C-alpha cells in the first residue's frame, strides 16, 4: 500500500457542532481508488464535505501529506444539482476548472483554454463541449464535470454519487474512465456511492459507513461475496 495522502485522526463529523459520526480514524493512500460506501443518510456526503473542507470537523484533525501547498481536489459533484438557468456550454463549465490557478481580474490565458480542450478530449466530452450544459444527458454532464475536475490538475479526484441521474451504460463508461485515470495518471480517486456493485468492481479500498460505524479496509476483505450476501439477506443493504 502506498503512503497515506489524507489522514483522519479521531475525527467527528456533523453540522452546527452536532456530530453525525464520531471517532473516525482512517487514511486514504496516495494513488488509491477508495469508495466511500453507505446507504442514504449514513453520513457519507458529510464525510466527503469534511474531507473537501466544505464543512469543518466537529472534533479531531485531518492532515494531508503534501509539501506545504494545500491538496488540490478535482471535485465532480452530482450533475443534477446544477440550475439549468445558467447559459453555459460544456466548455464554459470545464473551463471553470482552471479558475483556481488564475487570480482575480485576470483573463484566462490561451494555454489554459487549450488545456481545458485537452481535458474535454480525455474525458470523451469534446464533441458536446460546445452544447449547452443544461441540455446534455446525465452521462454527458458527468464527463464534462470530470473534464473540469481534470482541468484543476488534481491530486485527488473526488466523485459524489456519479450514478445519480445517469443510466447504467453511462455510469459504467464514466467509472471505467475514472479507473483508467487512476491507473494511468496515478491520481488518487475518492468515490462516494451507495452502489455496492460499483464499489466492489472499481475500488481497491472501501470506507463503509454502516449503522453509525465506519469500517475501512481492502475491498476484497470488507465486501467479500459472503459478507455482502449475508447483509442482503438481513436487508441491511
Amino acid at each position, binding site marked *: 500500500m502506498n503512503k497515506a495522502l489524507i489522514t483522519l485522526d479521531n475525527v467527528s463529523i456533523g453540522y452546527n457542532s452536532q456530530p453525525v459520526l464520531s471517532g473516525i480514524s482512517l487514511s486514504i493512500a496516495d494513488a488509491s481508488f477508495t469508495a466511500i460506501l453507505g446507504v442514504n443518510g449514513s453520513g457519507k456526503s458529510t464525510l466527503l464535505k469534511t474531507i*473537501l473542507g466544505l464543512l469543518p470537523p466537529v472534533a479531531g484533525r485531518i492532515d494531508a501529506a503534501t509539501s506545504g501547498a494545500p491538496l488540490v481536489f478535482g471535485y465532480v459533484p452530482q450533475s443534477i444539482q446544477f440550475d439549468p438557468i445558467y447559459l453555459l456550454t460544456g466548455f464554459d463549465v470545464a473551463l471553470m476548472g482552471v479558475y483556481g490557478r488564475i487570480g482575480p481580474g485576470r483573463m484566462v490565458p490561451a494555454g489554459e483554454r487549450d488545456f481545458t480542450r485537452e481535458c474535454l478530449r480525455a474525458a470523451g466530452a469534446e464533441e458536446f463541449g460546445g452544447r449547452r450544459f443544461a441540455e446534455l444527458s446525465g452521462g454527458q454532464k458527468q464527463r464534462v464535470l470530470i473534464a473540469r475536475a481534470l482541468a484543476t490538475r488534481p491530486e485527488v479526484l473526488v466523485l459524489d454519487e456519479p450514478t445519480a441521474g445517469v443510466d447504467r451504460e453511462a455510469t459504467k463508461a464514466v467509472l471505467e474512465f475514472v479507473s483508467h485515470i487512476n491507473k494511468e495518471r496515478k491520481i488518487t480517486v475518492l468515490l462516494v456511492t451507495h452502489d455496492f456493485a460499483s464499489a466492489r468492481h472499481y475500488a481497491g479500498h472501501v470506507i463503509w459507513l454502516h449503522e453509525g460505524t465506519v469500517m475501512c479496509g481492502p475491498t476484497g476483505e470488507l465486501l467479500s461475496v459472503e459478507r455482502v450476501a449475508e447483509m442482503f439477506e438481513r436487508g441491511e443493504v
Partner: protein
Amino acid sequence: METLSQILSPDFLLRNSIYTSVLVGLACPLVGVFLVVRRLVFMGVALPQISSTGVAIALSLPMWFGFKLAEHSSHSAHTLAFIGSVTFSLSAILLLAFLERRGRGQPEGRLGTAYVVASALSILLLAKNPYGEIGWLDMMKGEVITISNSDLVLTAATLALVVAILGLFHKELLLVSFDRETAIIMRKKVVLWDVVLYVLIGLTVSMAVLSVGPLIAFGFLLIPALTAHLFARTMHQFTIMASLIGGVVALLGFLIAYTWDLPVGPTDVVLLGALYAVAWSVAAIIISRRTTAAG
C-alpha cells in the same frame, strides 16, 4: 424620426432625463442578470422599494430633528437622499442575502412583506414632508423630468463601475454563483465575492431609484434580463442582450412618453412588459416548432 432627432439634440430641454433613462436602462440589467440566475427575482422587486424608503426617511430627518435645508438648494436634499438610498439598499441586500443563505423562514414572505411595508412607508413619509412637494413623490411614481447634472454624472459613474467590476471579475462572480462548493474547494473567497456582487446590485439600485424612481428601477432590473434569457445562448450574450434591451427600451419609452405626453416610468415598464410578452410567445413558438421537427 423628427421627434427622435429632437430629443437626441444636445439643446433638448430634457436631455438629462433621456440620457439618465438610457444609462439606467443599460446599467440595471447588467446586475439584473445575476438576480435572475441566482433566483433572486423577488429581491429585485423589493430592493428598489426599500431603497426609496431610505430616500423618504433621509428626507424626513430635517423635519423630525427640526432643522431646515438651505432654501432653493436641492443639492442638500439630493445628498441626504443619496445617503438614505445607498444605506437602505446595501443594508437590505446584505441582510436579505444573509437570511437567504441561512435558509430559515420563507424568503418570498420576507421579501413580499419588505416590499409592501417599504411602499406604504415611503408614501406616508413623503406625504407629510415638504420635500415631497418638490418632486420626490413624482419620482416615486416614475416621472423622469427633473434630472440634475449631478444625477446624470452619478448614473454614468455607476454604469462605468458596474461594467468595470463585472468585466474584471466576471469569472469569479460566475463561479461563485454557479457552483459555490467548487469555488470553496478552489479556495476562492466566496463571501467576499458575494459581498462585491451585492454591493454592486445595491449601488445600481440606489443610483436608479435616486435618478428615475423605484418603478423604472425594478422594471429595468428584471424584465430585460428575463427577455434576453429566452434567446441568449451564452452568459456573455445574455448580459449584453439584456443591457441593450434595457437601453433601447429606455430610449423608445422616452420617445413614446414625450410624443403622447405620458409619464416616462410607467411607459418604460409597460413597454418592457409588452416586449417580454411578445418575446415569450415567439420563444414558445420556436420551441414548439423545434419539438415538432425533432419528433
